[in-house]
């Protein structure tokens, strides 16, 4: 792909027509200000954010729209290249079905509609757009933290009528790119129990040996008291060593498993406050956090211990798997050259070869649009 000169008016806009239960601008998160009490926030499924941004040629941590439980609609006020990642929602562009993990082109005034996610396929879908969503950065990030009214559009969830600016496109014509959806964390949540790996501590010594066994041997259920701040779990009570679960408040991280006075664990996630006063029995490893960002209430969770060294190896593997490899290209099954116009038609095919994960694409001079196609049999 060659870099072309970019017109200065190539920055675009997306209008929110419907925002569903909650749509938020999220990026890699707001680091550097936790010592002043500012939450990090950021995408709940960082894998999906990274993949979406890569598909449209952005930095992996650029801002995208995180859409909870679908039900959202957007209008492209200017032509744009976009991709949907995370939870599969049966999305359409001007009525043409789309699949996750493929980049498409949308012409001016095209309407993107997201239905409800398929049950067991995750909660959060990400809309990444070439150039990135350019709401005003606050303290170095565009991530929305609703509780402290920081980031996104006015520190709140998106509302119908909001217009999101799209940044300048640095690498044009990236539509028709594909990412192997087998690597998407949204898929794991359909398993009977989500297995989450943890590094024990930092305050595992506040718990009795029996308490730690309870934590590692039991199955916990995600309650409906769960959100971007954390997953409140229900299940067997974890015994503390002294009868108290309180410590002098100290710092927490994404994935901290704290145990409050009722003995039932809470896994802290992106929107957590920077500090907390409950003992933390364990810490979920970074590569397993995206699946927690996709787990619905009722989902069963089990915890398995792992060493710091192993978890860091998994993180290096993730980086090689998600951030480095070349992206696939939609398959061209038919192509014609008309003067200087190159037109090809094909289907996307991921490596798993799942028939429900394909989309038909028409590519005109390297710009890929989703198309509807019906089987045509010429009359004899």
């Amino acid at each position, binding site marked *: 792909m060659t870099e072309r000169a970019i017109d200065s008016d190539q920055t675009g806009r997306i209008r929110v027509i419907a925002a569903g239960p909650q749509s938020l601008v999220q990026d890699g998160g707001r680091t550097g200000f936790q010592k002043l009490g500012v939450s990090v926030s950021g995408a709940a499924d960082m894998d999906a954010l990274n993949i979406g941004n890569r598909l449209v040629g952005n930095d992996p941590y650029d801002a995208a729209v995180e859409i909870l439980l679908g039900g959202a609609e957007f209008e492209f006020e200017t032509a744009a290249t976009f991709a949907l990642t995370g939870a599969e929602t049966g999305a359409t562009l001007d009525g043409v079905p789309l699949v996750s993990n493929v980049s498409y082109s949308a012409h001016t005034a095209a309407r993107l509609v997201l239905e409800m996610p398929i049950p067991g396929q995750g909660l959060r879908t990400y809309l990444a757009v070439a150039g990135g969503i350019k709401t005003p950065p*606050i303290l170095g990030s565009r991530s929305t933290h609703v509780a402290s009214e920081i980031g996104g559009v006015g520190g709140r969830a998106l509302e119908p009528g909001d217009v999101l600016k799209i940044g300048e496109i640095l690498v044009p014509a990236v539509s028709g790119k594909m990412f192997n959806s087998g690597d998407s964390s949204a898929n794991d949540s359909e398993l009977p129990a989500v297995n989450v790996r943890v590094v024990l501590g930092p305050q595992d010594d506040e718990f009795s040996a029996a308490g730690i066994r309870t934590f590692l041997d039991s199955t916990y259920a995600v309650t409906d008291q769960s959100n971007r701040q954390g997953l409140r779990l229900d299940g067997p009570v974890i015994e503390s060593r002294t009868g108290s679960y309180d410590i002098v*408040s*100290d*710092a927490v991280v994404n994935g901290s498993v704290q145990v409050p006075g009722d003995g039932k664990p809470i896994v802290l996630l992106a929107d957590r*406050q920077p500090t907390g006063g409950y003992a933390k029995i364990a*810490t979920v490893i*970074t590569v397993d956090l995206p699946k927690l960002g996709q787990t619905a209430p009722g989902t069963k969770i089990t915890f398995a211990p792992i060493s710091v060294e192993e978890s860091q190896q998994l993180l290096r593997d993730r980086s090689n798997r998600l951030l480095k490899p070349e992206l696939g290209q939609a398959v061209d099954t038919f192509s014609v050259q008309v003067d200087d116009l190159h037109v090809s038609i094909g289907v996307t095919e991921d490596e798993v070869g799942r028939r429900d994960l394909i989309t038909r694409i028409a590519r005109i001079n390297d710009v890929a649009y989703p198309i509807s196609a019906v089987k045509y049999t010429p009359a004899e």
Partner: protein
Amino acid sequence: MTEQAPAADQNVEYPRILAVGDSALLIEFGSEIDPGVNSRVYALAGQIEASHNAAVVELVPTYRSLLVNYNPLVSDYREMSRFLDEAVAGANEIPVSAAQPNVIELPVVYGGEDGPDLETVAEHAGLSTREVIEIHSGTDYRVYMLGFAPGFPYLGGLDPRIACPRLKTPRTKVPAGSVGIAESQTGVYPNASPGGWQLIGRTAVKLFDHGLAIANTSPSLITPGSEVRFVPVDNHD
């Protein structure tokens, strides 16, 4: 937000370095709220900042510990542990500063609409509201840490005579600048938020403004290591 720790484990030797998952390490200097322990936390934070270690993402100092968030793709667990061992040893060489801390004066209107719980606190203490105001404004409070919400200070040194339990039912909206008491803590809400502290007054000073970061100034007026002094005033002019 818990103030009292369980009885300290006598077998633990401080400082100690603990793994917090795959991307952070925690250095604990003690298990209690103590100005000397807290000074050690900030001495180490200064030492690490001065090292400009490229793997360090963010430091979060608290009452008794320092959380070091790092990028394991830049430096792994073993390497970071070694780096922190050396930094802890180096920080121990630094005498805990006897320099006068920066004192931030906050004018506060006590009682009335600004402090709807002043009389509750006075009743609980068996004192007059005037005495509660005198006691509360008569001390400089050490800022041990910030947390809970942007710019929210955890202050130490509340006179035990005016300690008071939290509200049974938290308010859904506490006005920005409200000064409160909860158990043996006092603090001030930088922004409107839900909260369960007993509100005794309010300051009109803006405590947190993320716009300030653009001018390369701290977005939080109150910074860790400084001290806060509440100055009683009759009105917000």
